[in-house]
């Protein structure tokens, strides 16, 4: 594996240039959803469809965000780090959409039913916990917040990025009635991503710039 092998000439530039494209790509699923909503092609139960799509993309974006660090280690493309914060914030954005779909479209602010649902149904509770845990991550994603917290504390806090998708997969697994193949695939991918963290000790970041771990 070309870990630590010679770098291509100034690859940083490429990741910076490509970033807007990645941004647009991440908007794709939301754009597609809007398009289907406007053309009335979300099927018989549009709310159900929107919940499913936004839930799936929250989980996918969380996994893609976790892919950055092992990918950097494998390829030596360290410029990938420039995308990570954006990817994580997209995961958060899809989670917000997913949660709003539930609160506004599915339940229409029926708070008594929402609270009962969260308390009584483990899969909702787990999803809700995952969402709550994403809030401090999104909140501390700015450079200023990284500086304020200091790299160490910031990194420790952002280890939640490992826990959230675990809860996300559990949330999915728990709601499936009999066919576990989809959550099983997510679990498998997540396990590989988490296991890749065990392989090598994380080097300690020293500067105040957005630290390279955890990813």
């Amino acid at each position, binding site marked *: 594996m070309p870990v630590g092998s010679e770098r291509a000439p100034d690859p940083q530039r490429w990741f910076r240039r490509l970033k807007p494209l990645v941004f647009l790509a991440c908007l794709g699923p939301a754009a597609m959803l809007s398009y289907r909503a406007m053309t009335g092609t979300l099927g018989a139960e549009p709310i159900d469809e929107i919940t499913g799509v936004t839930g799936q993309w929250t989980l996918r974006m969380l996994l893609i965000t976790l892919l950055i660090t092992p990918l950097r280690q494998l390829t030596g493309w360290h410029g990938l780090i420039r995308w990570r914060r954006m990817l994580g914030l997209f995961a958060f954005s899809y989670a917000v959409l997913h949660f709003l779909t539930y609160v506004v*479209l599915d*339940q*229409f602010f*029926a708070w008594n*039913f929402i609270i009962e*649902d969260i308390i009584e*149904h483990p899969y909702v509770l787990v999803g809700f916990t995952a969402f709550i845990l994403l809030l401090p991550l999104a909140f501390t994603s700015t450079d200023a917040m990284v500086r304020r917290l200091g790299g160490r504390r910031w990194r420790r806090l952002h280890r939640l990025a490992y826990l959230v998708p675990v809860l996300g997969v559990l949330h999915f697994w728990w709601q499936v*009635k009999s066919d*576990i193949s989809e959550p099983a695939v997510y679990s498998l991918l997540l396990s590989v991503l988490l296991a890749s963290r065990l392989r090598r000790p994380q080097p300690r970041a020293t500067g105040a710039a957005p630290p390279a771990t955890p990813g």
Partner: protein
Amino acid sequence: MLINKPADLRPSEITDRRYFERRRELLKGGAAAAVGLAAPGLLALSPAAAAKIKFEQLKRSELSADEELTPYESVTSYNNFYEFSTDKKEPAELARNFKSRPWTITVEGEIGQPKTFDVDELIKLFPPEERIYRLRCVEAWSMVIPWVGFPLGNLIRSLAPTSRAKFVEFETLHDPERMPGQRPSLFGGSLEWPYREGLRIDEAMHPLTILAVGLYGEELPGQNGAPIRLVVPWKYGFKSIKSIVRIRLVEQQPVNTWQAQAPGEYGFFANVNPDVAHPRWSQARERRVGDFFKRPTLPFNGYADQVADLYRGMDPRKLY
């Protein structure tokens, strides 16, 4: 409670406009097989459409619900039919070319003599009528569907059940060639095949319980359980077993597929009951497919007047 209006059965616009339009489309003169023969060109263009059986001049049963119908497109594109797929959108596609003729149903067990019927023979013996029923899925959505069917009781009575016939057991076709959801997958199958369901004999003989052979005046599409399925409108949808090949009258209470799959979540009776929550979903409310707001779920799906007597003296908590 935020939403605590009295049960709102919509006193409706008797019949949806689309429905009239569809009725107007219906071909004159019954048996559509004849259409297929008479118009081979049409048949080649669109075999499924051309060969569709239409039911003419259906009598609408008094037992019909007077509510706005769920559009045909929704009824036929949002289906829980794990024999094809666990995704509700996929059965419509995967069952598009499902061959539901010829088809036989064997009735056996505690009756005078076991008998095998061709489905079209059954339709001749027991002329179907239109029954508009509410359908409530355990996943908290519901529809209003104009079924075409006949009372299961008429069939059972004609076969002289013995005194040991206490329950009725049903079985869906098991044919992984034609039902791709039955093929084993990487992570194990989704359910134990064949799909089984059961009713107590008095439930099976109840006038509301029908064998449906069509909806919206036409033969059942594959994704809705072609060519013949059970419809028990006061129970959660999974009781209304699809694509039936065998009916057995038995003495012991059968174990239905979902009960075997998750005994803590699904029972034998599965009567719609807003007060008994499924461990994963509240059953207090439901979304009528196409609506934005949820509505309260009614005991026995609004059929309490007709069926509550069947369960006198039983603990309703045991009736999930």
